C-alpha cells in the first residue's frame, strides 16, 4: 500500500517546497524538485500498472476525512485497471511537460510559481483518479479546477488572462453544482458515497424512481445526469464549453497538460468510472451520446475558420472530448477511455509543438503571419505532422485505432441514436483532418508571411523542448497499438489483439458490437476515407490553390462570421446571465430591496419617533422658572383634586 501513496504525495511535497522556498531559495532551480517528484511518481505508476496487470487491485482508506452522523467519508485509494491507465496517462504527460517547461518557461519571473502550480495540479489530478469515493473525486475535481484557474491566469497582469481564469472557474462551478447535488442524491439513496457499495448496489435500484424537486423521475437517470453535469463543465461540452478556448491564455505547456491531456478528460473518466450507474439509464446514455456528438461537430466547425493556432487546437480538443462522450454514450466506455489515452499523447504533442512555434515566433499566434517554418524547425514540423496524422485517423497511428473503435461501436450500437451519432462522428473525422492539416500547411508550408524581424529570429527550440516532443511523438504513434481492433488481429492471425479491451473488462465491461465483419470493414474504410479526404481538401485549398479560401469566405460571409464568432455563445451568455445578474444586483436588490424597502422601514420608524419628539421638545424652554411654574401648577392641581375628592 505504502508506495502507492508516493504517487500523489510526492508532487504535493514538491508543491510545498516550491511555494515555500521557491521565491527566496530555489528560484531558477525550482524545476528540479518538481521534475524529480513527478519522475518518481511515474516510476511508481508504472510499477502499479504492472501490479494491476498481474491482478493485484486495491481499495483502501487512509484516514476518516469527514464524519457526521451516518455520513462518513475517507481519504482513500482505489487502484484498479482504470486507475492504473489514468495514472500512466497523467504521470507520463505531466513528466514530459514538466521537462518541456524548463525550456519554455526559461527566464520567466514566476518560474518557481509555475512549477509549484504544475506539481499541485499533478497532485490533484492523481487524487482525482485514485479516489475510492465520490467526495475525494470531488476534491481532486475542484483542485484541478483551482490549478487551472491559477495557470490560465498565470500572466495575471494581463486582463484577458485573469478574465479567462475566472471564467473557467465559474463556468466549471455551474457543472459542479449539478455534480454536487448528484453526490447528495447518491448519499440519500445508498447511504454512502464510496464507489464500491454504490456500484454494487446500483443494479438493485434500476427500476426505482425518486421524487426530485417535486417530480417523480427515474432514480438512476437523475443520478447519472447530475453527475454528467459535472462532466459537461470539466470536459467543456456544450453548453459549458465556453471556458476552454479562453483558457488558451495560459502558458502553452499548461494548455497541453491541463486543457488537452489530463484535466479536461476528467469528465470522461467520471462517466467511465460510474458506468455501473450510466448503464442503468438508457435516457442518460442517449443524452451523453448526443451531447458528445453535437459538441464534437459544433467545435470542429468553429475550428475550421479560426486563425489563432492555439484556439484551433483547443476547439479540436473540445471536439475530441465530444468523441469520447459519444463513445461512452453508446456503451463503449472502453473505447472512450482508449481514445482518452491516445488523445492525451497526440493532443499534448500538438500543443507542445504549437508552443515551440510560438517560442520561435516570439509569441505570435496568428496562422496568417506564419508559413514555411518547416525549414527552420524540422523537429517541430515532423512531430506535429505525425501528431496531425494521428488525430486525422490515418491507419497505423494511435488516433486511428481509438477513433475507429468508437465509430464502429456507434454504428453497431443498439441505441436508437447510434447511427445518427456515427454519421456525425464520421463527418467530424473529416472536419478534424481538414482543420488539422490547414494548420500544418499554413504554419509550415508556403512562404513566411511575418515581419523580417520575426524571420530573423526563427530557430528550432532547445533540447529540453524537442526531446519531450520526440518522446510524446512515440506515444502519438504507438500508444494505440495496445488496442488494435480484433478484426485486424484476425487478418494477421493473432487472436485477441485488442489487449486494452480485455484489460479494462473488469471495470468497464465488454462493449457490444452487433454487426458483420463486412460492416466493420466498411465503417473502418469510411473513417479512413474521411480522414484522407480531409487532408486532401486541406492540401488542395492551402497548397494547390491558396487563393481559393478567401473566395469561399467571401461567398459564405454570413456563415463564416457565425463560425468565426463561435456561434455567438459567449455573447449570448453575457446577455442572458451576466448582464441580468449585475443589473438585478445594482438596480433591484440594492436600489429597491435594500434602500427603498428595508431601509425605508428601518429608517422610517426612528424618523417618525423623531418627528413626535420634535413636537415635544417645544415644551422644553430651558428656563428653570417655566419648569417650576408647571411643577407648582401640578402640585396645585393634585392638591385640589385630593381635597375635592374627599368632599
Amino acid at each position, binding site marked *: 500500500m505504502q508506495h502507492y501513496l508516493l504517487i500523489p504525495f510526492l508532487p504535493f511535497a514538491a508543491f510545498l517546497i516550491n511555494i515555500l522556498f521557491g521565491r527566496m531559495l530555489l528560484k531558477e532551480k525550482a524545476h528540479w524538485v518538481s521534475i524529480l517528484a513527478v519522475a518518481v511518481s511515474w516510476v511508481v505508476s508504472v510499477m502499479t500498472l504492472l501490479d494491476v496487470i498481474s491482478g493485484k487491485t486495491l481499495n483502501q482508506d487512509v484516514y476518516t476525512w469527514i464524519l457526521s452522523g451516518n455520513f462518513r467519508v475517507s481519504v482513500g485509494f482505489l487502484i484498479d485497471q482504470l486507475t492504473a491507465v489514468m495514472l500512466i496517462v497523467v504521470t507520463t504527460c505531466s513528466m514530459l511537460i514538466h521537462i518541456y517547461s524548463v525550456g519554455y518557461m526559461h527566464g520567466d519571473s514566476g518560474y518557481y510559481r509555475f512549477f509549484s502550480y504544475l506539481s499541485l495540479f499533478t497532485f490533484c489530478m492523481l487524487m482525482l483518479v485514485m479516489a475510492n469515493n465520490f467526495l475525494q473525486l470531488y476534491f481532486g475535481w475542484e483542485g484541478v479546477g483551482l490549478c487551472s484557474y491559477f495557470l490560465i491566469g498565470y500572466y495575471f497582469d494581463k486582463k484577458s488572462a485573469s478574465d479567462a481564469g475566472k471564467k473557467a472557474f465559474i463556468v466549471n462551478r455551474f457543472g459542479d453544482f449539478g455534480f454536487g447535488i448528484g453526490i447528495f442524491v447518491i448519499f440519500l439513496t445508498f447511504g454512502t458515497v464510496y464507489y464500491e457499495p454504490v456500484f454494487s448496489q446500483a443494479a438493485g435500484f434500476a427500476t426505482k424512481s425518486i421524487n426530485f424537486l417535486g417530480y417523480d423521475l427515474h432514480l438512476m437517470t437523475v443520478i447519472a445526469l447530475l453527475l454528467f453535469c459535472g462532466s459537461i463543465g470539466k470536459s467543456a461540452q456544450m453548453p459549458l464549453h465556453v471556458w476552454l478556448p479562453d483558457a488558451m491564455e495560459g502558458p502553452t505547456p499548461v494548455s497541453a497538460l491541463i486543457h488537452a491531456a489530463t484535466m479536461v478528460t476528467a469528465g470522461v473518466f467520471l462517466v467511465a468510472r460510474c458506468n455501473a450507474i450510466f448503464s442503468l439509464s438508457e435516457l442518460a446514455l442517449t443524452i451523453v451520446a448526443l451531447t458528445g456528438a453535437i459538441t464534437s461537430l459544433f467545435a470542429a466547425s468553429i475550428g475550421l475558420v479560426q486563425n489563432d493556432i492555439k484556439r484551433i487546437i483547443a476547439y479540436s480538443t473540445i471536439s475530441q472530448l465530444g468523441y469520447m462522450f459519444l463513445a461512452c454514450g453508446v456503451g463503449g466506455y472502453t473505447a472512450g477511455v482508449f481514445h482518452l489515452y491516445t488523445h492525451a499523447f497526440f493532443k499534448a504533442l500538438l500543443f507542445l509543438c504549437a508552443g515551440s512555434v510560438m517560442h520561435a515566433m516570439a509569441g505570435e499566434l496568428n496562422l496568417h503571419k506564419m508559413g514555411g517554418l518547416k525549414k527552420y524547425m524540422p523537429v517541430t514540423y515532423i512531430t506535429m505532422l505525425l501528431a496531425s496524422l494521428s488525430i486525422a485517423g490515418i491507419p497505423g497511428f494511435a488516433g486511428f485505432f481509438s477513433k475507429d473503435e468508437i465509430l464502429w461501436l456507434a454504428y453497431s450500437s443498439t441505441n436508437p441514436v447510434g447511427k445518427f451519432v456515427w454519421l456525425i462522428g464520421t463527418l467530424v473525422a473529416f472536419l478534424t483532418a481538414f482543420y488539422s492539416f490547414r494548420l500544418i500547411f499554413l504554419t509550415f508550408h508556403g512562404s513566411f508571411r511575418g515581419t523580417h524581424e520575426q524571420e530573423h529570429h526563427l530557430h528550432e527550440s532547445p533540447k529540453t523542448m524537442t526531446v519531450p516532443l520526440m518522446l510524446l511523438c512515440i506515444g502519438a504513434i504507438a500508444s494505440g497499438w495496445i488496442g488494435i481492433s480484433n478484426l485486424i488481429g484476425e487478418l494477421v492471425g493473432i487472436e485477441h489483439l485488442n489487449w486494452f479491451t480485455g484489460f479494462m473488462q473488469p471495470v468497464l465491461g465488454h462493449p457490444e458490437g452487433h454487426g458483420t465483419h463486412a460492416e466493420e470493414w466498411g465503417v473502418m474504410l469510411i473513417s479512413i476515407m474521411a480522414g484522407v479526404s480531409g487532408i486532401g481538401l486541406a492540401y488542395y485549398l492551402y497548397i494547390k490553390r491558396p487563393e481559393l479560401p478567401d473566395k469561399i469566405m467571401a461567398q459564405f460571409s454570413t456563415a463564416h462570421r457565425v463560425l468565426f464568432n463561435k456561434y455567438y455563445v459567449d455573447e449570448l451568455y453575457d446577455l442572458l446571465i451576466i448582464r441580468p445578474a449585475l443589473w438585478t444586483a445594482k438596480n433591484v436588490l440594492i436600489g429597491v430591496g435594500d434602500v427603498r424597502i428595508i431601509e425605508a422601514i428601518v429608517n422610517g420608524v426612528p424618523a417618525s419617533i423623531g418627528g413626535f419628539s420634535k413636537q415635544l421638545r417645544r415644551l*422644553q*424652554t*430651558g*428656563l*428653570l*422658572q417655566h419648569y*417650576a411654574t408647571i411643577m*407648582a401648577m401640578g402640585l396645585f392641581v393634585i392638591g385640589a383634586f385630593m381635597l375635592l375628592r374627599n368632599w
Partner: protein
Amino acid sequence: MVPLNWYLILSAAVFSIGIFGFLTRRNIIIMFMSIELMLNAVNISLVAFSHYLQDLRGHVLVFFIITVAAAEASIGLAIIIALFRNKNTVHVDEMNEMKG
C-alpha cells in the same frame, strides 16, 4: 400655648412667599434664597408637629434637613459662582442651555 394651626399657617405663608419668589424673580441668588424659604417652611411645620405630637423624631429630622440644606446651599452657591464666571450674569432668562 400657641395652637398648631398658627404654626401651620405661618409655614404655609412662608412656603407661599418662597414659591412666589422662585417663580417671579429672575435673579438666581434671590431664587436660591426662595428655595431656602420653602425648605424652612417645611422645617417649621415639622417642628410644630413634633411638639404637638410630643415626638422628638421630628426635631431630629429637622436637624438633618438643616445639615443637608447647609451642604446644598454651599454647593448651590458654588454652582452659581461658576455660572457667573462663565456667563457674567445671574439672570436666569439667559440660562436656557437646557432648551430641548
